[in-house]
């Protein structure tokens, strides 16, 4: 057991009553596993990620990383944000080195680590560029390198490719699968994109909306998964298994949506 979430609840208390954002969340991520949580807007998925990152505190329940209870933010949970959160006044390399610098790594160690991860994300030739000079996809790759450089136990990703066009997004998916297989890291990614979740994850949690609860947990087995390294390329999107998983998740998400639209219509 690596990341374990037990009976997690988060209630936001506002002036006009309280809103249950997350209710009875139980989930776990094994070491080296790639897990996606899929949910429509309002499913509290970003809240979930913020809780794991320690940026927010749960109303009740616990989050443990390697048996250690999460009480605040820490570099053991690397976070890739939805919007590009690179610092525009630092070069790509300085951005990646920043976390290491704060941890007190020597200059050489910093340089080597940053070079390694920039190489992993395929941007070593852009290490002296400023974020402004990069495309959206490249910025997110730098953000991934920055998070990985601090050697997190788990990489948390909050809809990291939500702002990218579809072609870039698909390329990023293949990049991410590649990085994950090479580094054997644990990843929890939040998304509303069903195909993204099925394509990337080994396991998918489907979240319902208002309140956010776990509706279903699915283990994804696609043809080629038994090979090492796993052979997930975009051809897999034409396989019947891929459709089966996508349909199942979509209908779970849509079930709630139709109820809502009917309620609005009546």
């Amino acid at each position: 057991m690596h990341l374990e979430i037990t009976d997690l609840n988060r209630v936001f208390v506002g002036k006009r009553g309280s809103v249950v954002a997350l209710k009875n969340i139980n989930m776990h991520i094994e070491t080296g596993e790639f897990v996606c949580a899929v949910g429509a807007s309002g499913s509290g998925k970003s809240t979930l990620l913020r809780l794991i990152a320690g940026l927010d505190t749960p109303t009740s329940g616990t989050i443990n990383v390697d048996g250690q209870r999460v009480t605040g933010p820490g570099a053991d949970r690397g976070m890739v944000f939805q919007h590009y959160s690179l610092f525009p006044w630092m070069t790509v390399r300085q951005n990646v080195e920043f976390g290491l610098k704060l941890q007190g790594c020597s200059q050489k160690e910093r340089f080597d680590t940053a070079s390694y991860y920039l190489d992993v994300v395929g941007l070593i030739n852009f290490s002296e560029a400023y974020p402004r000079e990069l495309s959206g996809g490249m910025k997110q790759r730098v953000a991934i390198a920055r998070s990985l450089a601090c050697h997190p136990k788990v990489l948390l990703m909050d809809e990291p490719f939500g702002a990218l066009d579809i072609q870039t997004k698909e390329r990023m998916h293949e990049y991410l699968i590649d990085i994950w297989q090479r580094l054997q890291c644990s990843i929890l990614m939040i998304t509303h994109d069903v195909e993204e979740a099925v394509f990337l994850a080994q396991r998918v949690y489907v979240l319902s909306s208002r309140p956010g609860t776990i509706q279903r947990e699915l283990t994804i087995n696609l043809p080629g998964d038994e090979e090492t390294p796993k052979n997930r390329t975009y051809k897999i999107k034409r396989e019947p298994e891929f459709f089966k998983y996508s349909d199942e998740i979509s209908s779970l998400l849509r079930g709630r949506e139709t109820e809502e639209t009917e309620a609005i219509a009546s």
Partner: protein
Amino acid sequence: MASSTAGLRPRRKKNPLSFIYSPKVIRPAVAIAVLLVVWQILCSGEGSNLPSPVQVLEQTYPLILNPFFDNGGTDKGLGIQIFASLTRVAVGFSAAAVVGIALGILIGSSKFMYDALDPIFQVLRTIPPLAWLPIALAALQEAEPSAIFVIFITAIWPIVINTTVGAQQVPQDYRNVSRVLKLSKSQYFFNILFPAAVPYIFTGLRIGIGLSWLAIVAAEMLIGGVGIGFFIWDAYNSSLISEIIIALIYVGIVGLLLDRFIAFLESLVVPAEQK
């Protein structure tokens, strides 16, 4: 690419003065020429109150040719006059920059201080610079520090207000990143808050230096002594209208150069690719 075209067509040697033919030079040059001609026509009639451009040149060429003469008292060249004014601006503006940036960051990063101080600043910033001069004279008893105080109080508001906005607009994602990386208060300040606010600070500095230059000319008219403001006032009292006109042109050019200077500093601190 350059080598392939060079092979096809012998490259003509570029004339180093070819920029003179660019529209960016020709257009304003024509506009200035037209303006001068109109001015010449309007002011060359009998009994005109203002001199024509030709008269201005005739009457002031000793001043233009010899900017650094010093006959004692306030009878000094235009270069010395402007230098005196610039010195006052430099002292007052530097103090305003230091205090203004510090205040702005304090207010921008603390909701409490913002709520407490912003209303006061919003009132104070609307007070015209010269209205501060009497109170400064009363408090400081001397002309020189009073003039510098006027510059200080004129330049500080845009610096404070823009720095405040700069500190307030630090994106939530930057703050989240800094929390994930567990930055201490001072690390956050130097690594994130300050660099994120720098472009805003420079906007404030540019507005501030412009206002300082506007204020110093007016303040010097009242306090006297060496300085371009009093030079203009003195010239008016002596009915040397041509000298006023030449001084105004100098004031305009120096104001432009001051603005360009701050923009240049900004380009050193914040290169274009970082914005």
